[in-house]
């Protein structure tokens, strides 16, 4: 099976959107263009009941063909990493399942196959997950209420890069935050293979009460078609420009 490119948006937010179009709609729009939208809801430790914004987090991920996860601050690093990887597996598995349906008929998916025969299929899925190229746009909610969570978010993002850069396939990351100064989203880091240097560039908080999650997702989708992404990938294809491992 040929090596593909997986595109993902990773939305890290703590609350409810209150400006612009419905984020579920823009997430659907992203999904239709082959970009999965994952949502991580960062909460404070004391919140026990189903918190405000919970449903929105779920809805965005469902519409965006991705996963959602509610986490507390401390567990963020591993969660960011896990959700990203799980969506990769899920996406690839969906793709493999489709191929299977073509071969075996409409009712086939992993669960319908005898356990003894699932092994080989999962091996293919794992191989693809390890070798495919990955484009992740990280979209961070920097509205006022995220204030004390940003240092952890930063750490989690660096950690994600450590995990994904251990893969055989190529990675491209970019980071945007919202709301921007005058725009819906603001670039923090343009498409690049590593996230090592984000400590210097991580955004200052925007105060004020607006959270334009819907428009932010819409804008994020456009970034996947940007020239800077193509350029960054082309550079790597040139001989001698191969990204150093380790």
């Amino acid at each position: 099976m040929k090596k593909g490119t997986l595109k993902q948006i990773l939305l890290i937010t703590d609350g409810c959107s209150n400006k612009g179009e419905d984020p579920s709609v823009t997430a659907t729009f992203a999904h239709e263009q082959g970009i999965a939208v994952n949502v991580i809801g960062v909460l404070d430790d004391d919140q026990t009941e189903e918190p405000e914004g919970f449903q929105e987090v779920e809805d965005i991920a469902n519409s965006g063909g991705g996963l959602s996860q509610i986490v507390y601050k401390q567990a963020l690093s591993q969660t960011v990493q896990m959700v990203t990887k799980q969506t990769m597996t899920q996406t690839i598995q969906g793709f493999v399942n489709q191929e299977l349906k073509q071969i075996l008929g409409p009712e086939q998916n992993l669960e319908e196959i005898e356990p003894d025969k699932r092994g080989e299929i999962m091996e293919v899925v794992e191989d693809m997950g390890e070798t495919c190229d990955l484009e992740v746009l990280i979209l961070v909610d920097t509205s006022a209420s995220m204030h004390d969570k940003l240092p952890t978010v930063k750490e989690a993002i660096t950690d994600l890069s450590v995990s994904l850069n251990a893969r055989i396939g190529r990675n491209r990351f970019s980071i945007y935050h919202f709301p921007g100064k005058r725009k819906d989203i603001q670039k923090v880091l343009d498409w690049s293979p590593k996230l090592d240097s984000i400590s210097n560039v991580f955004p200052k908080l925007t105060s004020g009460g607006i959270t334009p999650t819907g428009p932010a997702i819409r804008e994020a989708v456009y970034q996947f078609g940007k020239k800077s992404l193509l350029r960054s990938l082309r550079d790597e294809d040139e001989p001698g420009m191969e990204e150093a491992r380790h």
Partner: protein
Amino acid sequence: MKMNQAWKKQGINIRPGTVITGKWHRKRYVIKRRLGRGAVGTVYLCEQNGRYAALKISENAASMTVEVNVLKSLGKVQGNRLGPSLLDVDDWEVSADAKYAFYVMEYLDGKPLQAFIKRHGQEWVGAFMLQLLGDLEHLHKAGWVFGDFKPENLIVVPSPPKVRWIDVGGTTKIGRSIKEYTEFYDRGYWGMGSRRAEPSYDLFALAMIFLTIYYPTRFEKGPNPKATLFKKLNNVQQLHIYRHCLKKALLGHYQSSAQMRKEILEAIHNAKTNAKTARRHTGTRSAAPPSNRSTWKEGGGIMLLAIVFYLSSLLLPY
């Protein structure tokens, strides 16, 4: 209603006495009690035809299949048994829309590493290091890295005492990205290396496992993680003779488990020789200086280790 991932992850609750019949192989398992809950599933003690086994069950057929693949591969590795042996793989269909994947494996009835060492003595530290390094060497030679190496994934079974691996969910082919890890034991988290599967990844975690024995509540990374690790290591008197080897493991200076194992053996041997000379000293002189006495005590432990090694081939009270 759709459930949130975090909630779904808590897995299923099966009441003791429930009979699980496999959809494909039609084997019947009676659930006895829950053994533990992990990232991808819940493990139960079960009984089949009068025999106990461990049954892991989950909604996530894909993740279960990945684990089954690893267990199958480990079963083919020559030498020691690495991980529990796999007995059955099947599905449980509770109703049309409640289906679970499960597999059944050897039930490892033992004690956590830390509890065992606390009860049976420090001498076991060296013994378990050697056992683990021996098993790791087999695993690495076969092209795998354990990945999620941590005390919770180890269990000491009796007669003779042997550390066995339980959760192989993180086991990854060499050269790939580590599938599953726990921050505290992960060199990436400490800024001491990549998350690429290579033997040195496991050796870092191994050093952390033995360090944790003396820091049961673990410790913070601090502003300089590397310095923190070395300081914590230096503060453990019981690890004194292994300190050099453990430091090398933390730094990723060992290319193979065999190499580390050899140096651990040497360290044990040297400590033993030092102990002998120290004892001869104390025998001829009336009062030994306090520093000598402490060497003696440590050396005495090493002597014991040799005896314990011999004894471990016999039955040991558990």
